[in-house]
């Protein structure tokens, strides 16, 4: 029996090539999207699952008005918390840093190093392969490495071997005392080497003058206890530790470990965090594609079924009961779906690297590790088969054999309503996606072309770790080079983070003010316009002066800025407003000081290079850098790239939108292509009669076009408001945004309609130009 069904199913697929092919292909696209997205989702939501009691572990973060929600806390916090709060079962802290290994002068590799306290290994339940379990890091120069690192770096047993690492404080030598395994599964806590935190603290104490350096990631594990009582206790503890000055409220907060990967909004969080937003976006994309391809499947199989009504009638007369027929249809559907599933796997295989690039992730298609994704995708396919079988069987069961054998079934009309409804849905989705894509594109190009108030052409920025004087002499060395137009040192350049300070204004209002240190040539290098007053020059009094932006004057209602002061620092100039971050932010008050005032952060060197001298100038700068800082290679970037980094998310979104709209359009087109083919076949006789009666080719083509056009227009009416609603919401993220104009919708609707018409006409013209005698002869 099964053999008989399968045989028929295969012959059917062969007989209806166009129909089956479009069906299989479109379903495969939908399934492939589902598979990839599900693998992605399961990957992203499985973070920290390998850690024992992960539910009870929280990250301790630091919060203040100055810097709300900072992921790092002061050293010793873990120990203090554990000692003072009995509800905390265990606590640990570590510092994470990328260290370099040099071979001679060449950078051999970088390693993810963490500096930990004693409880780290026990806290995260880390498996120790080799080494003293009770005391893994016995000395200050002890280091523990992961199995993988050991394999890739050492040729023999690494225990007892030496490892030279270049830290921010210079080269240090370590002796390997243990081998461990990384945290099981996916985790935000990544490391290749582990050293004791004490080593850093010693250096820190001698080098830094900060009283409270926030550089530790701290985690606590609760006993079975109330979350809020612990939080209160931690807050009490904080108020004991910190002496709060000037209303700068500080405190600690708790963030669940398992939510770090997707939901963290903390500053300087562990690297490699994603955003739950992507999961939602991808899931909706997969869902849209799945809906389109499935409605394709359902409408094509049911349209196909109408051709098989006669066969159903025959089978009933020769003894098939409902169950037999249901099984047959189910098997035929399953067969198509199964082929699609295999094709989906092949498509996913080829799309995988693109997907990984787009999402900046490394996932594989391995069915064993991703079994959940496979099971769900497979269940979905079975469900589709069931739904379309049930739909078809319900029509079938209602009919008498005599009606079935006649091959004319009166539900045909309602059936084609279902088809039209599905076509409308598909095109609504396609138009929605196309207009979304156009709007994203418009906004991205708007952002890229917006005048930011400064010029970034051929501007590179070096992260400088040089001391102030060294830095100045480095600048003096390079600024006279013929390929360089301007050099400037400042604590901020476009694309870098800028700190804001609250209360940094005469009236001490709660308005954040951006403060930075700049030198005399800063404004020249960035081509920032001065609208009143003067720039800094080397006058000795300038060390006490400052320059403000227009926004500052506006925010604090200063009418005559040049006569006013900021914190006793006379204002000597006013600059035109500049956009300091991404265009999602509005312009905020800003004050520029010279370097002799207090420092507002690490310094950068911005270098404006002359046109067509870029390559040689960079080579020259690197050579000079090596003389000044032989141990640390020069870290530099083009400001243009840095600014683009603000919009990686938008670029990714744009790419995803392009891919999705193309796919959804293709699937919808395949559906109307196949439906028109069926329609033409069904109406061959009608076309013949009409032609005999004198219908023109256009008249016949119009028969097919009219119907689809109507439904596509309805689809547009559904899609436009939806697209407007969602994109308007998206655009609200930007301080500078385009307005959504009507032509975007007209264009996307036009694209969909045009391509659909071409597809329909292609077959309709073929039918319309055929000789009517041919089509009538067989009837």
């Amino acid at each position, binding site marked *: *029996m099964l053999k*008989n069904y399968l*045989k*028929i199913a295969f*012959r*059917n697929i062969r*007989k209806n090539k166009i129909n089956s092919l479009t069906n299989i292909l479109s379903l495969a696209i939908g399934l492939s999207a589902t598979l990839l997205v599900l693998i992605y989702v399961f990957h992203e939501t499985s973070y920290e699952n390998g850690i024992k009691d992960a539910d009870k572990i929280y990250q301790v973060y630091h919060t203040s008005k100055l810097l709300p929600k900072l992921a790092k806390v002061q050293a010793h916090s873990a120990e203090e918390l554990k000692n003072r709060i009995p509800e905390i079962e265990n606590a640990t802290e570590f510092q994470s840093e990328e260290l370099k290994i040099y071979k001679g002068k060449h950078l051999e590799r970088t390693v993810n190093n963490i500096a930990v306290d004693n409880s780290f290994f026990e806290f995260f339940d880390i498996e120790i392969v080799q080494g003293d379990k009770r005391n893994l890091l016995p000395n200050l120069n002890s280091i523990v490495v992961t199995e993988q690192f050991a394999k890739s770096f050492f040729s023999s047993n690494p225990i007892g071997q030496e490892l030279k690492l270049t830290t921010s404080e210079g080269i240090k030598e370590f002796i390997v005392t243990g081998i461990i395994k990384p945290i099981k599964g996916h985790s935000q806590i990544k490391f290749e080497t582990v050293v004791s935190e004490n080593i850093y603290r010693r250096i820190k104490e001698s080098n830094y003058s900060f009283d409270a350096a926030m550089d530790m990631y701290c985690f606590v594990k609760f006993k079975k206890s109330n979350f809020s009582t612990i939080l209160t206790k931690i807050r009490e503890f904080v108020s004991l530790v910190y002496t709060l000055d000037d209303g700068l409220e500080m405190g600690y907060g708790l963030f669940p470990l398992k939510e770090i990967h997707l939901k963290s909004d903390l500053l300087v969080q562990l690297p490699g965090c994603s955003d739950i937003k992507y999961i939602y976006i991808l899931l909706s994309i997969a869902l849209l594609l799945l809906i389109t391809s499935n409605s394709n499947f359902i409408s094509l199989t049911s349209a196909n079924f109408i051709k098989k009504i*006669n*066969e159903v*009638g*025959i*089978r*009933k*007369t*020769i*003894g*098939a*009961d*409902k169950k*037999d027929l249901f099984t047959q249809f189910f098997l035929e559907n399953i067969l198509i779906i199964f082929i699609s599933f295999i094709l989906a796997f092949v498509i996913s295989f080829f799309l995988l690297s693109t997907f990984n690039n787009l999402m900046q992730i490394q996932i594989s298609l391995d069915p064993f590790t991703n079994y959940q994704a496979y099971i769900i995708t497979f269940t979905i396919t079975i469900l589709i088969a069931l739904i379309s079988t049930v739909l078809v069987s319900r029509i079938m069961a209602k009919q*008498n*054999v*005599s009606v079935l*054998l006649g091959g004319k079934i009166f539900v045909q009309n309602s059936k084609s309503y279902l088809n039209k409804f599905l076509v409308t849905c598909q095109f609504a989705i396609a138009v929605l996606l196309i207009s979304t894509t156009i709007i994203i594109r418009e906004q991205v190009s708007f952002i890229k072309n917006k005048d930011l108030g400064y010029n970034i052409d051929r501007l590179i920025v070096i992260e400088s770790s040089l001391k102030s004087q060294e830095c100045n002499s480095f600048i003096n060395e390079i600024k006279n080079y013929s390929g360089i137009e301007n050099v400037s040192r400042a604590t901020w350049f476009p694309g870098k983070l800028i700190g804001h300070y609250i209360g940094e204004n005469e009236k001490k209002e709660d308005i954040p003010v951006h403060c930075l240190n700049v030198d005399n040539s800063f404004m020249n290098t960035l081509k920032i316009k001065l609208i009143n007053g003067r720039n800094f020059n080397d006058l000795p009094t300038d060390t006490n002066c400052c320059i403000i932006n227009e926004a500052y004057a506006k925010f604090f209602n200063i009418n005559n800025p040049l006569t006013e002061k900021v914190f006793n620092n006379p204002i000597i100039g006013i600059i035109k407003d500049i956009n300091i971050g991404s265009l999602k932010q509005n312009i905020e008050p800003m004050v520029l000081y010279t370097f002799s005032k207090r420092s507002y952060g690490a310094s950068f060197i911005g270098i404006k290079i002359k046109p067509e001298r870029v390559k040689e100038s960079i080579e020259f700068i690197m050579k000079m850098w090596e003389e000044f800082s032989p141990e640390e290679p020069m870290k530099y970037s083009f400001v243009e790239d840095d600014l683009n980094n603000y919009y990686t998310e938008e670029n990714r979104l744009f790419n995803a939108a392009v891919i999705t709209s193309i796919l959804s359009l293709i699937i919808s087109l395949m559906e109307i292509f196949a439906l028109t083919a069926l329609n033409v076949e069904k109406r061959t006789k009608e076309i013949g009669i009409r032609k005999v009666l004198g219908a023109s080719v256009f008249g016949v083509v119009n028969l097919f076009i009219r119907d689809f056009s109507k439904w596509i227009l309805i689809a547009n009416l559904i899609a436009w408001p939806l697209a407007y609603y969602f994109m308007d919401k998206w655009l609200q993220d930007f301080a500078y945004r385009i307005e959504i104009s009507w032509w975007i919708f007209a264009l996307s609707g036009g694209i969909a309609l045009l391509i659909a018409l071409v597809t329909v006409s292609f077959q309709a013209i073929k039918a319309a130009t055929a000789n009517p005698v041919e089509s009538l002869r067989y009837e």
Partner: protein
Amino acid sequence: MIKLLGVSKYYQNKFDKTYILRNINLEIKEGEFVSIMGPSGAGKSTLLYIIGMLDSASEGEYYFLDEQVHKMKEKRLTELHKSHIGFVFQQYHLIDELTVYENIETPLLYQKVSGSERKGKVAELLDRFNMVAKKDLFPNQLSGGQQQLAAIARAIISKPKLILADEPTGNLHSDQGKEIMQLLKKLNDEGTTIIQVTHSEENAKYGNRIIKLSDGWIEKE
């Protein structure tokens, strides 16, 4: 074997009923060869379908081998239908996607007959109908007469007690038609009850009883 008591068939429209069959009383005994005749739209085919349990009566009682068909559950109906009744149509109604062999074999599949038994039975019939050479051809590769032969082979493969034929020679040349009628006659001689719908007086002569239908009424016998 077959007993119809006051059988009617109608379609309910919004305001009135359209009758296809009216108050049919009919008894057919085992071994009979009955021809149902009458003009187009008289309800001949509907009567045949009701007798074949492919359609149900709107009113009246139907007894098949003394079982009450009008009160039967669908499962038992299919059971009875597939083990006792074979159908032959004017349009042959072979399944296009199946070969001659597979078409003939299909009823046995629905009766869950084992593989080796199926092979034997199909081979025997192919042999009897001289169609062995054509067993792997598809229906559209055969002439009308050959298609009808295959359809009859399919109808009798499970040795039904009753064959219902709806204008079996309607689409055939007279020679082919004659051949088919002789075959039906032979089956009747071997003990199978046959009911055919026909327009042709000549074909009706192969049978031993004629029922005339007009406007859904039995006119005369």
